């Protein structure tokens, strides 16, 4: 068995309408089994970029659906969302994203 399987990296980009402006980075969650860390940082431009690193490979379609739904609820602009996931369920991912969005100014 190769250990190279490792992490899968996924990128998604949505155009937002809620410009957040400058803010101190927001961090919620922890990298632990069944959990994830979500880091929100300012980023130039109108986009909301998601950079996902996950230990559970092959769930790209679900990530896209979860992140698209989040972005339709919170159409953020000028934000980069870094996610470090250790096999969290979509429920946990959605909860962390909601918690992170609630912590924005």
């Amino acid at each position, binding site marked *: 068995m190769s250990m190279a399987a490792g992490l899968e990296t996924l990128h998604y980009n949505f155009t937002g309408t809620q410009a957040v402006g400058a803010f101190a980075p927001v961090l919620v969650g922890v990298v632990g089994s*069944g959990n994830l860390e979500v880091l929100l940082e300012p980023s130039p431009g109108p986009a909301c970029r998601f950079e996902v690193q996950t230990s559970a490979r092959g769930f790209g379609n679900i990530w896209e659906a979860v992140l698209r739904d989040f972005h339709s609820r919170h159409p953020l602009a000028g934000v980069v969302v870094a996610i470090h996931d250790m096999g969290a369920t979509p429920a946990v991912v959605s*909860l962390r994203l909601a918690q992170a969005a609630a912590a924005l100014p």
Partner: protein
Amino acid sequence: MNAPVVWDHQRRSRDRRLTRARDCAAGKHVDAAAIGALLRAVIEPGDRVCLEGNNQKQADFLARALTALDPAAVNGLHMVQSVLALPEHLDVFENGIAAKLDFSFSGPQGARLARLVSAGRIDIGAIHTYLELFARYFVDLTPDVALICAQAADRDGNLYTGANTEDTPAIVEATAFKSGIVVAQVNEIVDRLPRVDVPAGWVDFVVQSPKPHFIEPLFTRDPAQISEIQVLMAMMAIKGIYAEYGVQRLNHGIGFDTAAIELLLPTYAESLGLKGKICRHWALNPHPALIPAIEAGWVRSVHSFGSEMGMEDYIRARPDVFFTGHDGSMRSHRAFCQAAGHYACDLFIGSTLQIDLCANSSTATLGRIAGFGGAPNMGADARGRRHASETWLKAGREARDGLPGARGTPRGQKLVVQMVETFREHMEPAFVETLDAWQLAEQAKMPLPPIMIYGDDVTHILTEEGIANLLLCRSDEEREQAVRGVAGYTAVGLARDRRAVENLRDRGVIRRAEDLGVDSRLATRNLLAARSMRDLVDASGGLYAPPGRFRNW
């Protein structure tokens, strides 16, 4: 000339058995070393035998003795028992002593049971709920011989079951009053019992087991393992269902989801001003997770199916809440508590493994025949119920409003809530197009797919995505979209008709956390009234003494 009709075959058979057993016993007392000879004397081939297999306590000494009999002499037995918990419960089939089985639950032995059935070694009569099997003890499955389990006996053969009375009264009543033979294993023989749970006149033989009977702590949930999603779902249950319907009388399943609800009563529910308005009367085993709510004055009464290890002293100190004997120790009773859960509770809430588009719910998985235990009696509308309560009437109105004829005749309905995360561990979806139960029924040649709770009894589905109120659905299409609308990112959820789901949301059929005013930022473990086993012990004032495996401090 006709021969005179004999009306007491069973009594004569009993007398023959007792005569054969005379040499194996001193009165009612059987030496542990003589148990094989006694069983050989009282059991005949083809007998119906109840080998007391409970949810918790087990007649394990008698089980081993039964498996050790010579199948050339004792065979073709028809086992009628509620739970298959021990390997011996199936060994009797593998070694040819027993042939037929009627039961309720086989949790730990489910996979082996499936193998033995497919190999043709076991003929299953039927899989029952507990209450159904007890009912059949009094109709067409009356045991010829019952091998039961109690804590202690006195010299006359009176029995004290201890807190885990469980099935014993139902088994003994059916057997003793239909000329059957009752054999009891006990942990000790004493001069004076704390109380009498089974009178000596109903007991034929007593044997002191060399070791105390096996008992399993099945209802202890370590609060440390409750997740934030479970906290969020518990908040939605309390605000969206318990408060909405004013649920006073209820039964909970045994999972972490419902333990989270129990642990949010003194915190979140208290903050909503619900104390005294919900959750006062319970049909429930003595869950340690209920201690903080009891201590905070939420709970008026708890009647239990069985007991729970470590809760003895706590229960003894709270007789206003629990059912106890004059000796102070708990008296549980599975048959009565099942009846209480079915007829006297307004709500059942529990978890499941799979839900289909009709809201049928099943815990059956391929390669296992696990049975249902009590869930179908808790999780079913009690069609024979006639007394009203506000909760029951409101649910009934929601279900029947506007319907014509018999379907619209006013009556109440029990709330039956299935509470699941949309994905279980390893990303197994809880929502499926087709239940595994259908394939299992085909494999095991069952007359029906093993559905735990039928979709037309399920009133609400609660997931992290929200609550679907199926009482308000007026067509199969609406019902399907209501299921899909809370199925999250499972394939079933992704295939929703988004417009139909938004329409259901506008009508309040589907309600999200934000629609309920549930703030997901509060959904942290800090909201739990106890976050560890140690917290539960502290909440009990040191009266709760968890079994060793749960003591991690």
